[in-house]
């Protein structure tokens, strides 16, 4: 229980901490939350299903309020806690980290995220899904650029529409299961009602597609990222998007498998289009953040397409890739943030020659660039390898489309890197990295290389939970089919 409510309590406290103490309080609090989750990790047996809250009775409207985690959820919880610590660390030398409201909102968001990952009740899942939106909206509203109303409006409109669809779908799901408990929902029987299942899942998928974002629903992303403060972009990209991917793996596939056969190829196609589309647009973008936003569309298109294959290998690889993307997102937006901090611009045309004046930053930015183009010895390498392999096995056209990310990714990332770091020295003064930035880069690199050399550790964790879901699903339906 403390796993879920510690962030809530600390978040509320954070609002009342005097400005002087906010920064250390935030970092210590996030580390203590991380420590709590690590204790859970140590006591965790991969084949377990740990229930945090398990009332025996069933409340009105079929609510059950069950909460608990398996390997999959625990990995996501750990990822959330680790990334929040790293985000707070990355912002240490920035003004925003001394702001009580920001720190409090971050913890509230962490609360919502952990709640989402551990909820085992459909309506609870939806509640946390909505809850997570409020802190990030306020962060964007209070700390973003002043004239970002239009972008914020778009972001809110999109996500709200998605959430509405999701709510409708969950209500409809109530007709197919005795109550909203996860375990009941996954056993929901749609035999003979595949179209209804497809419609219900389509609603849930719409919410996910907006958040991921999949190809035609992505227009909120770039302006929101561009206008958001660095920390907000990191929270959005490294954590918020993962809610949707997690939801796809944990909720959508086991529950509505019968209906998803209709949605499988459309979503994979959209993912494939997103891979190429995001990459192509990223090639000519001038604003580093916009560029990374489109790169993100490309990366996540691949993950979403992989998940929709429903093969165990693809889902395992997706998890590796989810973790890798969190690393890359924090790293790249930190790089963009560092440049913006020092120079007040992110336009590649105004940059150039930074590596000369700030060699350490040049080095670490290069390392992050390589991590993001998935070179060997990084987690992305294995993830991309297996994902593209599974897509290629499913159909060679989507395989080739997905593999284009190999080439296009190199094109836009190297353009971004070289355009800002090499070339004519337009930048003459550039303060090199601060200690916290060194630490963040080092930690991220360590994580990327660790998971790149031994991804098995992630696979071992999530495999039993995937198999468990398989058992829960009724009889002849298996994930691999």
């Amino acid at each position: 229980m403390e796993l879920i409510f510690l962030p809530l309590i600390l978040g509320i406290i954070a609002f009342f901490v005097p400005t002087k103490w906010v920064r250390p309080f935030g970092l210590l609090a996030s580390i203590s939350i991380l420590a709590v989750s690590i204790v859970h990790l140590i006591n965790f047996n991969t084949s377990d299903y740990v229930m945090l809250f398990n009332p025996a009775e069933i409340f009105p409207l079929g609510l059950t309020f069950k909460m608990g985690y398996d390997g999959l959820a625990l990995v996501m919880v750990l990822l959330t806690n680790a990334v929040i610590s790293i985000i707070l660390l990355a912002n240490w030398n920035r003004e925003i980290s001394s702001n009580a409201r920001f720190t409090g909102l971050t913890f509230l968001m962490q609360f919502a995220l952990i709640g989402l990952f551990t909820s085992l009740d459909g309506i609870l899942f939806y509640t946390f899904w909505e809850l997570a939106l409020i802190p990030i909206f306020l962060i964007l509203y209070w700390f973003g650029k002043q004239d970002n109303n239009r972008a914020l409006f778009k972001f809110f409109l999109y996500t709200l529409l998605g959430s509405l669809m999701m709510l409708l779908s969950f209500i409809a799901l109530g007709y197919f299961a005795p109550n909203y408990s996860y375990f009941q929902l996954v056993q929901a029987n749609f035999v003979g009602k595949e179209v209804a299942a497809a419609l219900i899942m389509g609603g849930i998928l719409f919410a996910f597609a907006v958040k991921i974002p999949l190809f035609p629903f992505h227009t909120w992303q770039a302006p929101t990222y561009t206008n958001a403060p660095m920390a907000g972009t990191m929270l959005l990209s490294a954590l918020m998007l993962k809610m949707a991917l997690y939801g796809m793996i944990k909720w959508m596939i086991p529950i509505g498998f019968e209906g998803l056969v209709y949605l499988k190829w459309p979503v994979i196609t959209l993912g494939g289009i997103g891979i190429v589309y995001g990459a192509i647009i990223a090639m000519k973008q001038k604003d580093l953040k916009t560029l990374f936003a489109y790169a993100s569309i490309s990366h996540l298109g691949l993950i979403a397409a992989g998940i929709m294959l429903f093969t165990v290998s693809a889902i395992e690889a997706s998890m590796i890739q989810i973790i890798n993307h969190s690393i890359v997102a924090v790293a790249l937006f930190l790089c963009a943030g560092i440049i913006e901090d020092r120079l007040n611009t992110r336009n590649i045309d105004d940059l150039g020659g930074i590596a000369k004046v700030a060699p350490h930053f040049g080095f670490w930015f290069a390392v992050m660039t390589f991590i993001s183009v998935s070179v060997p010895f990084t987690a992305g390498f294995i993830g991309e390898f297996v994902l593209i392999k599974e897509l290629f096995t499913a159909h060679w056209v989507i395989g080739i489309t997905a593999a284009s990310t190999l080439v296009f990714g190199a094109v836009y990332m190297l353009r971004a890197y070289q355009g800002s770091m090499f070339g004519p020295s337009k930048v003459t003064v550039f303060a090199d990295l601060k200690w916290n930035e060194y630490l963040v880069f080092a930690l991220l690199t360590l994580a990327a290389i660790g998971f790149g050399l031994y991804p098995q550790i992630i696979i071992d964790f999530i495999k039993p939970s995937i198999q468990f879901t398989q058992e829960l699903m009724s009889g002849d339906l298996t994930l691999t089919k």
Partner: protein
Amino acid sequence: MGKDLLLLTLISLPLIGAAINGILGKRMPKLIVGSLATMMVFVSFLIGLTLFTGLDKTTIVHLFQVAKFEDFTLDANFQLDSLSIWMTLIITGIGSLIHLFSMGYMSHDEGYHKFFTYLNLFIFSMLLLVLGSNYFVLFFGWEGVGICSYLLIGFHYNDAEKGLANSLAARKAFIMNRIGDAGLLFALFMMLNHFHTLEFVEIGKMVTASPELYTGIAGAITLCLFLAATGKSAQIPLFTWLPDAMAGPTPVSALIHAATMVTAGIYLTVRSNFLFELAPTTKDIILVIGIATTVVAAFIAMRQNDIKKVLAYSTVSQLGLMFVALGMGAYTVALFHVTTHAFFKALLFLGSGSVIHAMSDEQDIRKMGGLSKLTPITHITFLIGTLAIAGFPFLSGFFSKDEILAHAWMSSPIVYGILMIAVTMTAIYMFRLYFLVFHGSFRGGEKLKSHVHESGLSMTIPLMVLAVLSVFGGILNLPGIVFHDAGHWMSHFLESTTYGLNQIEPEHMDGNQSIILMCIASAVALSVMTWAYITYVKKQAVAKEDADMNAWEKLSSNKLYIDEIYQTIFVQPILWLSTTLASQFEQRVLNNGIFRLTSAIEASGNYTRKWQSGFLSSYLFWMVMGIIGFISYYIIKSTFWN
């Protein structure tokens, strides 16, 4: 120490060197940094020699399992057999010489420790590439060398003049390599789907056990593998990155872009020979592309004026020649040429490095001339390299080229004819280069001349060693027809890795024919040499300026406009697409689409708002109308439908 441990040490030494230099190199004196890096590679070479002498059968060393997925596993395994150990010896042997050379060449560079870090990292990746026992480890190394190549080509990104060009060249190399990598990726996927393993030995066993099962898929796999090879080994259509890659420091060009990395494509093909043997179409494609590349590159090389560009196109051309051998199924012959080419091309590049070093970083051969007296050791060694590559009798290049030509003659006289043209062009551009640089009078001005000096020992020792190897390298694989039992030592050594599908001798070749072919080749080399001597030394002809050139020369000097063509066909459309999509589709269709939707909702609200006029009488009016409507509906319904 057991073989396993020796092998792992061999691989990890360069990595350790890279780690130490990377972390501590900045605080250590240059001498220690350089010698540490060199020693690491050299010790690897010695270990390689030990393993080489004790080699008996194929050994697989299992390190750890990277990941286990549903229907396949990814293992970090290494394989010790004649092919991998042969490549290892080339890589570490030439590698340690080039490391030694770099200690002198890079001595004035501020990024000294960085350079050796990258260089060691490259050796490590290259060792992964050749020592891996499965395609996955190979792919690891394959990508790894790509990155090191990127880092090293763009090493001088800070250079005031050429910095931008250097980094652009590096990017081009990386991206073009990535296109090839995608090919390798697909080959891997197909192998995983059909063989459920990536181990060379196991796939080899499956394929040789029942070849008829796999003929179809072998065609697709080998095509993808060959795409990968064209990327890494700079063949048509992906060869344009290699000449640009000369932007890197010269030792890099010698090590990566001449001796080792670019031969990875050939290694890959030889390694997968069991698959290529099942795919005659792919082999024909390889043959055609090899011939085309060798001729085109040799043609371009004839009118290049940058000393390194000439050598770069020469490398492309020689690689093409190796692919011709592969296309004919003469795997060991290709490897023989890889070996001798590594000797003399590394020698030539290091020689050019020595020249560039002496000329204070001037690379234009129009500004050189008469260097033979100023830099005697460089001159002699460069001459040996030139003779070797031009096919001067009894030097290493002569034997290896002759093998390829003999195979070509037996397969088709047309192929032989085309190859002879390429070989002649090779001799022409090499002697042109040699005479323009080392003979005649110095054209770079007095000021520059006073600076010209012979390089130090650390640079000349590698030159001399490589010169010796270039002269005697042919001994490794003397033609069997002439030398009988003493011949083909190397081919026999490598036989075990080619799964009995390989032909060492061209079929139906008798000794006389062989000797005649050798004589023709020698005659060509000698006559071109004489011609070049007359043209460039006696007549003092200097490389022409652009304006004086005829159409052919212009074509050669402008590299057949291939870069421009690629730019128009591929790069521009994609960039255009990017701009258009961003400004048109993204903004107009998607973005405005969403706002259209919201404004439509807003407009409908605006419209219905007007109904709410606030006038009581109008509300009442509509209310009464509604009541009347309802009543009349029910009246009409009850009157007519009952």
